[in-house]
């Protein structure tokens, strides 16, 4: 592409970390192909909206984002991809302001589609190869930390979840490909790799399970840290706990509890109980007392009684999650929970959600407090107005004065105080010389 015809591309991403990863991989693709990465308000030639459909709110947000992006860039090629493209495909295809609707499994070929469009070829999205793992290792990203996708899809069919319908069956990326992707990501200068997928605990490539893959990732040479994006509490044993002794593996897990009531869990079709969850948490904390657990909780699931909700409150307190991602249950069309009885009034859901959020903030404060006077190895992600921002090993947010400090570098920081409030609470510290 010569400079006079340099095309500009903008991305808008909604939803989960997997989506973010997939956008990052697309950014790399477009960047390598000579496109210029711009914001949606900088007259892009191509706008890619990577949608989410996990809740009704995310549906609405995705719709609004698509129309805003399309309206502001009426001459641009508008590509809509992500879970909404799977779930509301026909509807989206009938909208004149959208050029292409590309389903999740063809997402990785969006560059080919757009290139073909500019070359005047008529390429239909259904002619694109289907491969959920075709993505190039991330080179240029919207973030400093880079995700490596190891798995896609899920067939657990939790009653509230649309994912099995929109992302399809569970498939795992071969070990050798994952390792290659990790190697390239490190070569591209990333200092932190996040292992990502829809249900990564279900990883299975021949005889290799998730723990086997993780052990091999940790042995890839180089100076980098490894995080695990989010896990279902699928019964982890001593081997998994042991792996966290490796200095590259960060002591944090986002383990999705969803409810603290065994009855609610069964109605959600989640096949573990609170006692099993407790066993996992206690196992980790007996070896690593300051291990960080965060979680997802759904409040107001159909039939959730006051007692069942109280069980969730108790669990959030007991497990000391330093952050709870709280979702008010919202009906997803086509899921099993849509047809369950005893849907909970919005007002009660809002009250319950507020209670969990409040608890989450208290827990976070308590957790951050436990680090005061201690040090963390902080990977600097951004520097604004002389202040460096990043995360410590335990995934605690840290800021410190940035004099002489560089992005994408790890510093030892002595933590001195908590600043900010609520969701924006963070640890402030100073360089430990």
């Amino acid at each position, binding site marked *: 592409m010569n400079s006079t015809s340099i095309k500009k591309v903008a991305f808008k991403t909604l939803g989960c970390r997997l989506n973010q990863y997939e956008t990052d991989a697309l950014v790399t693709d477009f960047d390598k192909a000579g496109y210029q990465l711009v914001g949606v308000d900088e007259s892009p030639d191509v706008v890619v909206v990577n949608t989410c459909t996990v809740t009704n709110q995310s549906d609405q947000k995705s719709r609004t984002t698509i129309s805003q992006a399309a309206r502001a860039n009426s001459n641009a090629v508008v590509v809509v991809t992500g879970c909404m493209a799977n779930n509301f495909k026909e509807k989206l295809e009938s909208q004149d302001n959208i050029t292409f*609707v590309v389903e999740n499994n063809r997402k990785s070929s969006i560059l080919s589609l757009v290139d073909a469009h500019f070359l005047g070829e008529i390429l239909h*999205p259904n002619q694109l190869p289907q491969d959920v793992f075709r993505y190039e290792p991330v080179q240029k990203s919207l973030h400093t930390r880079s995700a490596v996708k190891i798995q896609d899809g899920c067939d657990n069919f939790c009653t509230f979840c649309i994912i*099995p319908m929109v992302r399809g*069956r569970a498939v795992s990326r071969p070990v050798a490909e994952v390792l290659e992707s990790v190697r390239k990501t490190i070569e591209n200068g990333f200092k932190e790799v996040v292992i990502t997928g829809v249900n990564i605990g279900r990883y299975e490539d021949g005889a290799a399970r998730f723990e086997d893959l993780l052990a091999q990732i940790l042995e890839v040479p180089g100076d980098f840290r490894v995080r695990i994006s989010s896990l279902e509490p699928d019964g982890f044993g001593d081997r998994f706990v042991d792996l966290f002794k490796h200095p590259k593996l960060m002591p944090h897990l986002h383990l999705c509890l969803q409810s603290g009531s*065994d009855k609610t869990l*069964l*109605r959600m079709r989640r*096949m*573990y109980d609170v006692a099993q969850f407790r066993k996992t948490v206690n196992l980790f904390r007996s070896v690593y007392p300051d291990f960080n657990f965060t979680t997802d909780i759904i409040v107001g699931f159909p039939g959730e009684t006051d007692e069942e909700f109280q069980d969730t409150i108790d669990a959030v307190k007991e497990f000391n999650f330093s952050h709870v991602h709280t979702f008010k249950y919202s009906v997803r069309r086509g899921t099993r929970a849509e*047809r369950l009885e005893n849907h909970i009034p919005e007002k009660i859901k809002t009250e319950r959600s507020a209670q969990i959020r409040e608890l989450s903030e208290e827990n976070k404060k308590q957790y951050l407090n436990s680090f005061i006077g201690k040090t963390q190895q902080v990977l600097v992600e951004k520097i604004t107005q002389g202040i460096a921002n990043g995360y410590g090993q335990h995934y605690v947010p840290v800021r410190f004065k940035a004099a002489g400090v560089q992005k994408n570098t790890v510093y030892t920081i002595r933590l001195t105080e908590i600043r900010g409030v609520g969701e924006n609470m963070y640890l402030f510290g100073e360089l430990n010389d």
Partner: protein
Amino acid sequence: MISMIKHDIKIDESFYKVEEIRQLTDETFSLKLPRARFAFKAGQHISLGIHGDYQSREYSIYSGANDENLEVLVKEVENGYFTPKLRKLKVGDLVEIHGPFGKFGMEPHLALSGKFVFIASGTGIAPFRSMVRTYPEIDYTLIHGVRYSNEAYDRHEYASDRYILCSSRDQKGTYNGRLTGYLKNCTFVPETHFYLCGNSDMIFDALEILKDKGFERDQIHCEVYF
């Protein structure tokens, strides 16, 4: 706007013609389809769709892994969305199938060495019929909870000393009352593996009883239908 083909799968692979409908009670029937075009493990389920309908539902596979036909057992739910439509299907109609899905079931090599107790409510018996047909030598006891004893679907296929019918609304079961009532008075050897399938209320109650008896949650496997 460029349009796309609706599904990214090969159409012919996921459509099956209904070969036979076996009416088992007024409400319950089985759909016999051609042999599965995929390998599955007894206990797994499929998702079943009807052409032209946006919804699909999951059904445990009712046939054995080596059977001539793929079969599912369906109970028509009053005011249900999907089952009244399934009920209207006729021999020769097409259904769409995806799968197999799920982890419910045992590894084939363990099926012949372990001791199993299967606990089912209503159509929750489906995966157990598949297991028994797939592993004819399996050492099992099947405790089946129903309302009326005519819901003992295909009971003649199970050895009479292995099949315990608990009927709550008539007096014709091995045990008259809910299966949880029967379960409370049972004793099992410590190494038993339990498989529970059916509605979540039954599964919750049965789990509590088994945990009270001292069994570990890890030896109890659950498949919730609703």
